[in-house]
């Protein structure tokens, strides 16, 4: 049985990240919160036999599967919140950079919305959760080779979607400048 203090600690430690993971897959922030809450309830009622060492991967797997299931159930457009500037991407000496980054985030969000669930999931697991190929293979129960080929196709599809002309008139029709993110 998990104590209240321990449950609180795990929620503080993993909750925000799990919500971001779920929202990245199911594209609905409120649904993501419900999914993560449910995952913690499951953890409390039936914790993994391996103990606390397995909590992180167990929760991540439950949240991933529930998010995919939720997506297949509802298939409605995402309701994600407005972006708050990511400090990691700020460039203090270039104020215009932040505006550009906001536009790019909007664009990648629209592109992610258009990808199918397997591509979106594997991109999130690799880029956001920073799982290794072996961890992704184990997490999604697919071969390692499939991880590599699916990542290749997912990245190519994402770039194609980001290059697409915006569908809404209010979106600025500009060329996406990928080179901005090239590491120094």
């Amino acid at each position, binding site marked *: 049985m998990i104590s209240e203090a321990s449950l609180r600690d795990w929620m503080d430690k993993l909750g925000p990240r799990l919500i971001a993971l779920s929202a*990245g897959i199911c594209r609905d922030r409120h649904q993501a919160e419900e999914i993560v809450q449910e995952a913690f309830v499951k953890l409390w009622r039936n914790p993994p036999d391996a103990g606390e060492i397995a909590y992180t991967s167990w929760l991540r797997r439950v949240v991933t599967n529930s998010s995919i299931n939720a997506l297949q159930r509802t298939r409605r457009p995402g309701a994600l919140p407005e972006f708050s500037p*990511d400090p990691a991407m700020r460039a203090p000496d270039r104020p215009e950079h932040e505006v550009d980054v906001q536009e790019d*985030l909007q664009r990648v969000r629209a592109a*992610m919305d258009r990808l199918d669930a*397997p591509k979106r999931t594997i991109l999130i697991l690799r*880029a956001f959760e920073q799982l290794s190929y072996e961890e992704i293979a184990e997490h999604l129960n697919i071969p390692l080779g499939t991880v590599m080929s699916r990542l290749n196709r997912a*990245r190519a599809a994402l770039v194609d979607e*980001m290059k697409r002309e915006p569908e809404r008139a209010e979106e600025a029709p500009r060329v996406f400048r990928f080179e901005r993110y090239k590491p120094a």
Partner: protein
Amino acid sequence: MKRSMDCTDIKVLLSGLIDDELGAETRHLAERHIAECRACRVLVDEAEAAHQLVASEAQATVEPGRLPEGFVGSVLSRTVYDEPRRRGQAGSWVNWLGWMAAAACLVLAVAIWALDRRPLTGRLAPGPAPVAKAPPPAAPNPGMIQTAVYNTTGRSWTFDGELPPDALALPGAGEADSHAAIEDDAGSTATRLAGAGRNAADSAAAMIPLESGAVTEDGARSDSPAAPPISRRDAETLDAAALLLEWLLAGDDDSFADIESIRRVAEYDGLPTRLAEARDRLAPADRPAVFAAESILWRIVHGPLSLDDVRDLRRTVSESDLAAKLEVMSGRRESAGAL
């Protein structure tokens, strides 16, 4: 001897390059090509930028390190704070079940006692049937029934009155038709053939159904000899094998680094065994290519291999266009269910 890479190699190795999963030699060759090829440089830059933006986009959906308001309270109210109530409910259920069981035992004991009190002759010889007045069981229309008598010998009820004509009608008439309709829908499978745009021999070897409805979940064979279904697991196995063979083609002739990486992946996935299993389920026309891939990967996994052996394997894969054949066979199937 392969000392350089082309744009196709870069596309195959793109994710490995970005995620730093390539051997040193392969990475060196890839970087040398990228330095000279503007198109590939753009390709890699785009993929790297997309990778970074995906992480930022996901992070931007939450305030870092802070849970939404009411989140903790909601979870605690369904777990820690709910436990006493859940235990209480469970306790009351146990109590209730206990009382029910005791009552049932009592009724049963009284019934047995009452039966045993009847005279022996009455139970063995057919005489005038004793009758008892009792309320009828659930009657469809109580207004039409005056009395009901239970015959303890014949174990049947006699009604003094008439039952309404629809009292014995079975509920749910017509459901059989709807089930039949559902089965018809599930039974029909649309298929399309892969291999368009390739040469005739490849297309013939790649007559694989691609629609999700044609792909069985458990690898069962189809009744149709023209387009046997391919299970999701087999499709993934073929896909993974195709990627490793492409990797083999793009690898360096003078180093075992790529072979070691391929060996690691093939061994981790158990690909030779999985290919052998998949081969048994595939159409006869597809089996030679799968057998060839299985043999090549088995040799890589189990070794030993010299550099000459590696070149021979690479030549075999290249001349038979093996990777492309497996790729077409796998159907490149990818759907939400694939997860």
